[in-house]
């Protein structure tokens, strides 16, 4: 499939950047033209993403829409793109969310060109990561996505934006450094950056009789593993690498928060699925002694951290009075389910690699299906939650929930949408979040039984913070301070959130519109 003479995946990566340039060059005098042009371009790119998703043939076990062009031959890197079921889902998510974020950005009045261009540029980074089959390309786009988001937070954010943007940048780069080293180590050693090839050769690599560069090969692998592990843990974020997130999400402008929570966090989870599981099956299951008392392995440690994220994320959200920080912490909570699902998959994949088989294959398929679907679902519901939180912030200029109260009186439509979205976020059966959380819990239970039990505490407090949010915004007598304000949701916001609401309901009622795409890839990967 080609568009305008270039293959469709390369088009998806390049088009947003080109659109960004176009938007930048438009006369800044007429904000309307800039806005509508940006929206039009983003919608077009989104439409292509939708076409790609539905054009993906899940029964075909190979990567699809593959293009490989020599690029940096000296290093063994090439422009190599292609998608499987997991990437297809993420491409779809990105394609849907970007135009909605741009529509929400219509409320930005300062330097409109630049703002819109950065959002589009950001999309290039995201899509680039999701379609790349080359480790070097992966890394480049992974880093590229940081820059526009840094400026979006730093320039258009809330009162504490400088701190938040810097913290976001530092954290991310801090993680990336290790990842860069690991990327170089793996790529240079294997002589290629092709991820598919690496998935075969790197785990099998034994150096010269178990020694490489004079170091034990297991240590080398563990170092490379940790490089990726920390980087992606920061991005997901996995507890305790999460403290950049409430600041960044809280201070970012609405569109920034939507894309940050909606897509950017998935880069981390995607990195685990695409790189860390296939490249390091033996490291995941290698025994680790903690202080000589607890014997576990990296999958167990990861699951434990994920559980802490679920529980502490929920508690932290419950403890907030700032609405955007509350929603931000909810991401820590929800992404914890992604992480624990990944942990199960990693354990099963590693056991199968090392021992030639595992009793957890079916559980891992459930868990990984759930994790990927949860990535998609969290993208929908967190973006919608930030849209609503941002909407009310934009109208009242405060994020302090104690200043709200009784908004349902004057804003019944907003109230209904807020409750609907909150319930999707809470994981109400019948809506999207439940399906993925159920799959994760089902998959995790036989493997990490006690961790699953404890993480139910997090699920309980998910209810706690969601109800707290609803209570603070909608319930109670109307706060007469806002008597003269129009608090009702605007038509533009309704248009922006409507696709998300529809997808939440449809995914909750008929999850098989998307799950088989994920399932087939996952099943092949885990050998079910």
């Amino acid at each position, binding site marked *: 499939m080609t568009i305008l003479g270039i293959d469709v995946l390369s088009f998806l990566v390049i088009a947003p950047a080109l659109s960004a340039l176009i938007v930048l060059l438009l006369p800044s005098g007429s904000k309307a033209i800039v806005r509508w042009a940006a929206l039009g371009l983003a919608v077009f790119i989104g439409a292509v993403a939708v076409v790609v998703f539905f054009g993906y043939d899940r029964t075909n076990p190979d990567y699809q829409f593959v293009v490989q062009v020599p690029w940096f031959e000296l290093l063994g890197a090439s422009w190599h793109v292609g998608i499987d079921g997991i990437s297809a889902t993420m491409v779809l998510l990105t394609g849907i969310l970007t135009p909605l974020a741009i529509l929400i950005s219509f409320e930005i009045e300062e330097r409109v060109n630049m703002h819109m261009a950065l959002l589009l540029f950001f999309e290039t980074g995201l899509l680039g990561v999701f379609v790349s089959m080359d480790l070097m390309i992966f890394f480049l786009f992974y880093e590229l996505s940081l820059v526009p988001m840094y400026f979006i937070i730093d320039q258009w954010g809330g009162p504490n934006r400088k701190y938040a943007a*810097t913290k976001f940048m530092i954290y991310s780069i801090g993680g990336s450094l290790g990842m860069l080293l690991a990327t170089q180590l793996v790529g240079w050693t294997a002589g290629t950056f092709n991820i598919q090839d690496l998935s075969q050769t790197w785990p099998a690599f034994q150096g010269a009789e178990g020694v490489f560069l004079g170091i034990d090969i297991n240590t080398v692998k563990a170092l490379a593993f940790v490089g990726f592990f920390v980087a992606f843990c920061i991005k997901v974020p996995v507890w305790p690498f999460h403290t950049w997130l409430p600041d960044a999400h809280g201070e970012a402008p609405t569109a920034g928060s939507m894309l940050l929570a909606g897509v950017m966090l998935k880069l981390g989870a995607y990195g685990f699925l695409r790189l860390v599981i296939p490249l390091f099956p033996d490291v995941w299951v290698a025994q680790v002694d903690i202080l000589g008392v607890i014997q576990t392995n990296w999958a167990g440690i990861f699951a434990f951290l994920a559980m802490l994220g679920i529980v*502490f994320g929920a508690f932290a959200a419950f403890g907030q009075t700032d609405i955007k920080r509350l929603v931000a912490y909810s991401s820590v909570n929800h992404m914890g389910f992604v992480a624990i699902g990944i942990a199960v998959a990693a354990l099963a994949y590693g056991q199968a690699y090392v021992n030639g088989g595992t009793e957890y294959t079916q559980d891992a398929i459930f868990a990984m299906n759930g994790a990927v679907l949860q990535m998609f679902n969290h993208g929908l519901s967190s973006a919608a939650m930030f849209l609503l939180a941002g909407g009310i912030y934009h109208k009242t200029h405060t994020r302090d929930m104690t200043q709200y109260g009784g908004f349902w009186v004057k804003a019944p439509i907003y109230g209904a949408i807020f409750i609907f979205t909150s319930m999707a976020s809470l994981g109400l059966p019948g809506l999207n979040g439940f399906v993925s959380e159920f799959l994760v819990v089902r998959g995790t239970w036989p493997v990490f039984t006690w961790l699953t039990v404890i993480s139910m505490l997090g699920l309980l407090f998910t209810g706690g913070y969601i109800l707290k949010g609803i209570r603070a915004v909608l319930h109670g007598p109307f706060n007469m301070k806002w008597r003269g304000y129009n608090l009702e949701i605007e038509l533009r916001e309704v248009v922006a959130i409507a696709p998300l609401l529809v997808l939440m309901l449809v995914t909750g009622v008929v999850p098989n519109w998307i799950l088989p795409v*994920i399932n087939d890839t996952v099943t092949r990967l885990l050998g079910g």
Partner: protein
Amino acid sequence: MNLNDILSNPDLLPWLIPVGPLLAFFIIMLATNRAKMVPATSHEYGGHHPDYDGMKVPVVTLQSRILSVTVGMLGTLTAWVLSLITVSNAFGAQHFGEEVFGDRLNWLATGVGEFTMGVLVDPFTTVMLIMVPIAVTMIFIYSIGYMAHDPRQSRFFALISLFAGAMLTLVVADNLLLMFVGWEIMGLCSYLLIGFWFEKESAYKAAIKAFTTTRVADVIMLLGIAYLYASAGTLSFRDILYNEAMLEHLASTPAIILGGWGLSAAGLIGVFLIIGTIGKSAQFPLHVWLPDAMEGPTPVSAMIHAAAMVSAGVYAIIRMYPLFEAGGNPHAGEFTTPLMLMAIVGGFTALFSATIAVAQNDVKRVLAYSTISQLGFMMAALGIGAYIAAAFHLITHAFFKALLFMASGSVIHGMEHGEHHVHEHHAHDEHDEAHGHDDHHDHGHHFDPQDMMNMGGLRKTMPVTFWTFLLGGLSLSGFPLLTAGFWSKDEILADAWLGLTHGFGAPAFVFIMLCLAAFLTAFYTMRQLGLTFMGEPRTEEAAHANLGQGIVSFTMTLPLIILAFLAVVAGFAGVHPDFPLFGAIFSPEHNWFHHFVGPTLLHEPASIDFSIVPVLFSFGVALGGLGLGYWMYWRKPLEAGQPDPLVSILGTVHPVLKNKYYLDELYATLFIQPSQWFARVVVSDFMDHGIIDGVLHLIARVFTWIGDLIKNLNIWLIDGVGDGIPELIAIFGTWFRRIQTGRIQQYMLLVVIAMIVIALIFAVSSGFLVQAAG
């Protein structure tokens, strides 16, 4: 496939049963819920809302009101008609039970397999399909009048439609997951409806309490579902429960955790699922949400207490019963862990909440505790293996409890009417005599239309309400022979007695607890009736309490009459064939209910022999309680200002009962406040801000110091050595200086370095770990 094919195919028809109300929800929400803006001071925006001076607020238009009510009614009537067709199909089917109606679709991809969603109508579903739509329809009719002046009536009808749709989904579900979907959506609906008057603090607090308390149980239930799915490979009821090999497998596998305690997989799954019901059906210790749930409009209370929410909990247990029984046999004295749990929790709750009900003065609160108590009867019955009796009591209870709630709603409505009357009357007085303003003001503020102490004598002004309330109350008390409550309660006691005579502990415990509870039930019902309807009005409001005329009065009366009829006759469906006289009349061949519902199970439960002893106990406790209540509250009805005689009789016990054993306070101290403190102080402030960010900031500071050092060194070098020093350092220095513009920017660099160091330490140490291990 066209609609006709579906309608004429009994296997497919159940799909459509929940569709009507669900569709009604969406239609009302999206199309027929239009509002107009009126000043908040207008009478159209009165009642349960504060006045907002000079602000305009949305109030549903008359047109939307009519359309929404119509759509809602059509939805529920469709469901009723389809249920009736299904019921008649079921009655006409051969070997129904062994053969069932059902259909399934692929729903979720799971590796190489698929999770299927489907519907199932078996005998037990059928009796639910008789009860639920009737009760729901009555509640809908009643709501037309009850909510006629509410500014958000459209929303109300949308939500109760969703509620009804969710309950019907739960009833026709063929697997545990779909049942859980209906279960949780009902949880949402009750949250939204309990908090329907969301501007009232008590309302939204009750809503949050209900949702949170049931969620405690639901997350544990979710584990049970996941565990069952993992062990059985399916969640379909028939595949698990109608399959002996599967049950045996589950009962003989040790549990994945706590297996050391001799718990089997079936046992642990059962315990998890039962905890779900303990929350949903408001059993001790998770019962605390239900009494507060009456903050919602009264039709909602009827919905929650009778037709839907709490019945769903017991329904789920009855549905999954063979799983709980697996590995044991209660009729042979082998009680599995889940059965013991049910017997103990149910028996205890039945008596525990009956004692609280005795000391309540709020007309709805008494009923709320009676619901908890009656659900305890059902749980206890299931714990001792009285499967049919529990199912029977579930149905009869739904009828008389829906009746009682709606009748109490009429009482409250009547009292509010009376209050309104008095209010206007006083207003006139003020004009005429220019005094009494403060009087009336205070009066209006402190008057509680739900407090039975303010009532009395209502039988004169509200006769229909009185007679229907009386029938419902007698049914609840188990008034012998004539009421439905008697027959179902008697059957539970008969089962318990049988176990007791065999010398089994659990049935003995249950028998004693339930007899005591039944005695108290009869007593507090008489107390309630006496305080509300007997004697002379104790307040001016009570003297003027009535339902008025017209559509409101009609729609609020009709359902009472229909339900009163059912509260009497429903019991005759389950009379023991050997019961003197009544057995010959109503069960000439066999106990209809037992005979019809029994085949739901693979092993049809055996009928027990008739015994006169439990019947005598039933007579004794019901008549004893009623008699005592009559003696205390009917013979000499309370007069205005006279204290409740119970206060002096119970002495120091009374405040304990009145305050519900202080459990709310206890939970607030033990759970709510600590978790709020933990969330805010420990997790947010201490852990995230204090430790994690603190460590990062500390590292940042250390590197700031080093940075300053290097900068000074740089300056010294540049000044001292001049241009000869490599440019790189100069650039480095300028870069550092730029970073010095603010504290936060400093952190940037510093934290980068910090992160590298952390990552390196992490990497190296873990490398050593791996090395050490391997």
